[in-house]
Structure formats: structure tokens, C-alpha cells
């Protein structure tokens, strides 16, 4: 065995470099669990020197609802609603990830129409999720109006979801073997209406927020995450692409017929600062919305007829074995490590929440930044605590 030098020395504990001639006392600031910009019940302990944050230590677990333990007690079908509650802003994508994991392990083939509908709904949900991310990022930066605009557009998507599956937040629409119901009459037309309306709105957000001088100066060069750091901390999704790594599971390991669609993978270019800063991570989301619109248009154009649900027994039993299956969620790669012992419920289900991994880089990025940059950083990582704590 040859020795290999380890590249990254874990150095979570960090000594504040205070100027030697001025003796100041570190102020320990408890940010959260109830704080407007922690996006849920995240608690961050900040060690500050005036406005300067020397160290930030996140504490999580306030929203831990034992999803993995519950999974061992319920059947496969019964667990689908629990996946809604992981990343509650992208429930469709969560449903898809779990359904794919079960289908792959059980060797279940899904009909073509179901695959197309899955693509349409998960891309719509990606837009909805990115709208929340964009809007609440504006809110973190102190601009209230983009938030309301984004929610206005999201309402339309939620209306579309509601008409298709009856729910506005926790859909459980994409089930094992396909999707639960076929589309209602006129849904495709309404979806097209939305896309026609929504596409020009993206440039409106850019005018209002993305290229706003103050916004650019607040987010450019802040929280810079170079590509190697992003990979080392296993950032995925827009956070990784914001660092300039062209990595998207929809392109790399296509699932659910994503290879039949034509779309680009936007990456950060560091055009308003350093590569991998908050602005890049933010703008990747804006660009991804355009790509999602492209995918949805293609899927609507080529939407095949046929059944939307494969024959799956009510009490599904999977063969003994295990699988690790990932999908590209709006926040990154959502992974399900599913271990089956041949029974009707998972023997072990480990959920790899993208927000969980993205948040783990916070102590590294939040060093020697200003207090206001913490909210910029948290917003650009775009965490959902339901998924971090599971």
C-alpha cells in the first residue's frame, strides 16, 4: 500500500485572527432557530467581532421528524407522502426520486406518458422551487418586491398542480409505477399559457434584482466557493454549478427519459465577481428556470398518449437487495439509499438531502465575513430545513 497525501485537512475549529494590538472580546451571537433569514429552524452560532463574523457553527435537527425511522415501519407506497415533507418546496421531485429508487430495485417499467408527465411536473416544480429561492433571496437582501412577484408566478404553478392532483404543496402525485392520475382536460393549454406568461417575467426579475447594482455588490465576491471546495464538500445542484462545475444528473446519468430533451446546463461564470460567489449561485437558478421552460415545452409538444400507471401490486414487495438512486432536485442531488430484505417495507432507507450537504459547507464559507453576508450566504445555499433535518 502506498501512502497518499491527504489534500484536505479538516479544520472546522478556527481561531479568530484578531489584530494583536486591539484586544476585543468575541461576541457570541445566537442566530435562530427563529430568525427571518435562516429559512426555517436553523440555528447558527456566530462568533463575531463587531460586524465581522469570525466563525459560524450551524446546529440542525430542530425539524427532525424521523423520516428514516418511519420508513422502516410503513410500506413502500405509504412512504411516498413522507417524501413530500422532505423538501417541501419540491415535493414532485422528491416523489420522483423515491419512485425511481423503488422502481429500479423492483424492476418496474413505467409507461412513456408517465415518464413525460414526471418530467413536466418535476420541471414545473423546479421552477416553483427556484422562484421561492429567488424571491426569498431578494428578501434576504432586503428587497421585498421580487419575493411577491415570484410568489405570484408560483401561485400559477400551484394552481396547475392543484388541478392535476388536488394538492398545492404535498402532492404525492408521482407514485411508484407512474403518476397517480392523468391530466384533466385543458391542462396542457393552461400550462402553455403559463409558460408564455412566465418566460418574459424572468428578464423582469433580472432587471429588478439580478443586475441591480446594490444586489450585485451585496452578493458578488461574497461567500466564494471555488470548484474544488464545492466538490470536496459534495455541494450539488445550483451550488455546485454556481462554482463553475458543469454537473447535472439529468445530463450525466439521465433518468426518466431526460435524455430525450434538449437543454443546457447553466454554470456560474463569475461575471459579477469571483467564480463561485453568491451571485453565481443565485443566477444559475435564474438560468435554470429558462431551461426548465424549454424542457416543459418540448415535453408538452411530444406528450404521448397511453396509460400513466404501470401495474404495481398494492402490497409491493421488493426483492432483497439494495440500491442507491439519485435524482437532480432543484437544490441538488436527492439520493435514496434503499435496502430491502424482501419485505413490504424498506429495511433501511437513508435519504441524502442535498440541502444537508450544501449546508455543511457553511462553516467554511462563513469565515471572516460580515454579519449581513451570513444571510446572503444562507440564501444562496438555498436550504430547506425539512430536508436537512428530515
Amino acid at each position, binding site marked *: 500500500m502506498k501512502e497518499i497525501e491527504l489534500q484536505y485537512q479538516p*479544520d472546522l475549529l478556527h481561531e479568530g485572527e484578531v*489584530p494583536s*494590538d486591539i484586544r476585543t472580546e468575541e461576541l457570541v451571537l445566537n442566530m435562530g432557530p427563529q430568525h427571518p433569514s435562516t429559512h426555517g429552524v436553523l440555528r447558527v452560532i456566530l462568533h463575531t467581532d463587531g460586524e465581522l463574523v469570525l466563525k459560524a457553527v450551524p446546529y440542525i435537527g430542530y425539524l427532525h421528524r424521523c423520516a428514516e425511522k418511519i420508513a422502516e415501519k410503513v410500506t413502500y407506497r405509504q412512504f411516498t407522502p413522507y417524501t413530500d415533507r422532505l423538501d417541501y418546496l419540491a415535493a414532485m421531485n422528491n416523489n420522483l426520486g423515491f419512485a425511481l429508487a423503488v422502481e429500479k430495485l423492483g424492476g418496474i417499467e413505467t409507461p412513456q406518458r408517465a415518464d413525460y408527465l414526471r418530467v413536466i411536473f418535476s420541471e414545473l416544480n423546479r421552477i416553483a422551487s427556484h422562484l421561492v429561492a429567488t424571491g426569498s433571496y431578494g428578501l434576504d437582501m432586503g428587497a421585498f418586491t421580487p419575493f411577491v412577484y415570484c410568489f405570484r408566478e408560483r401561485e400559477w404553478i400551484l394552481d396547475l398542480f392543484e388541478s392535476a392532483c388536488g394538492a398545492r404543496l404535498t402532492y404525492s402525485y408521482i407514485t411508484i409505477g407512474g403518476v397517480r392520475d392523468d391530466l384533466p382536460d385543458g391542462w396542457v393549454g393552461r400550462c402553455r399559457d403559463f409558460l408564455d406568461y412566465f418566460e418574459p417575467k424572468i428578464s423582469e426579475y433580472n432587471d429588478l434584482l439580478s443586475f441591480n447594482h446594490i444586489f450585485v455588490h451585496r452578493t458578488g465576491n461574497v461567500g466564494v466557493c*471555488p470548484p474544488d471546495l464545492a466538490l470536496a464538500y459534495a455541494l450539488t445542484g445550483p451550488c455546485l454549478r454556481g462554482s463553475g462545475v458543469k454537473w447535472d444528473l439529468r445530463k450525466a446519468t439521465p433518468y426518466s427519459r431526460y435524455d430525450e430533451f434538449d437543454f443546457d446546463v447553466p454554470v456560474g461564470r463569475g461575471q459579477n465577481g469571483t467564480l463561485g460567489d453568491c451571485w453565481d449561485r443565485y443566477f444559475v437558478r435564474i438560468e435554470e428556470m429558462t431551461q426548465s421552460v424549454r424542457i416543459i415545452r418540448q415535453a408538452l409538444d411530444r406528450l404521448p398518449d397511453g396509460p400513466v400507471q404501470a401495474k404495481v401490486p398494492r402490497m409491493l414487495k421488493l426483492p432483497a437487495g439494495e440500491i442507491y438512486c439519485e435524482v437532480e432536485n432543484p437544490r441538488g442531488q436527492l439520493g435514496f439509499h434503499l435496502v430491502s430484505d424482501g419485505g413490504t417495507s424498506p429495511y433501511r432507507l437513508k435519504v441524502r438531502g442535498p440541502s444537508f450537504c450544501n449546508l455543511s459547507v457553511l462553516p*467554511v464559507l462563513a469565515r*471572516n465575513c460580515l454579519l449581513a453576508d451570513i444571510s446572503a450566504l444562507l440564501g444562496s445555499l438555498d436550504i430547506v430545513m425539512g430536508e436537512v433535518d428530515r
Partner: protein
Amino acid sequence: MLEKVIFFLFAVPAVVAGLAILLGTNIVRMAYWFSAMLVSVAGLYFLMGAYFLGVIQILVYVGGVAVLLAFGVMLTSRKLARLRPGRGEAVWLAGVSGVLLLGLVLSIMHAGWEQRQIVAADSISEIGRSLLGDFLGPFELVSVLLLVAMLGAAYLARPKAQTHGPRDGKGTTI
């Protein structure tokens, strides 16, 4: 009659605030008592017809100096915020301030107050003319003093070599 009432309306708070500064132990409250005293004295200026002086007192001393004082004091730790001089210290301080007070009283008694009509003490143009005319020398001297003070402050606050800024990129290297 009314003037006297108003005089006491301002003078009593000024004295009370001054005593509170002396006798208080909480340094932050002392800063606020100080600004209360400044406002009361400004009121006395108004009563005397020196509007300009009164307004400048509020603008500069209350709005600027007292705020910065409170700001500086606020940043000290809460334990330090309570102070109480020791007995030896108190005697020493009382001696020094007693001598100073005596000097002040003596100088007031021997000042030789002339009964001179001050030409419109509240007229800003008069004040401006005298500052830039009769008293140009002292005025410029004070300006130079302030400039030196400002340079000194800037020197003290200059960025040191090892000071870290938020934008130095250190926070992102691993």
C-alpha cells in the same frame, strides 16, 4: 417672572443631570445624563437669546458628541459598565475638581464684566463676520487643532498589516 420660571425649568435639570453624572455608577446612564445636561444648557442659551449657540449645542454636542460617547460606552462590556471609584481615588478626584472649581469661581469673580451691549448675539451673520474677521487667528488655530486631532484619529484607526478584512479572500481558502 416667567423668565425666572423658565430659567429654573432648565437650570434645575442641568444641575440634577450634572449631579447624576457625578454620583451615578452605570456608565451608559451617565452618558445619557450627560446629553440631558447638554440639552438643558442649550435651553438656557435659548433663554438668553443665543439661539445659534443653543442650536449648535444640540446639533453638535447632543447629536454628535453625546451619541458617539454613548456609542463608545455601549460597546464596553456590561460588567465594566458599572463603575465606582475607590475611597482613595474619590479623595484624589475631589481634590482636583475642587481646585478646578475654585479656579473657575475666582476667574469669574475677577473677570471684570463690562456692561456692554452685545450686538445681536443671535445674528448668525454677525457671528460669522466676527469669526472670520476679528477672531480669524484663534479660529484658524482651532481649525488646525481639529485637523491635527482628525489626522491623529485616522492614524490610530489605520488598517494594520495583519488586520483581516472581509474581502481579503482568506475566508475562502482551505
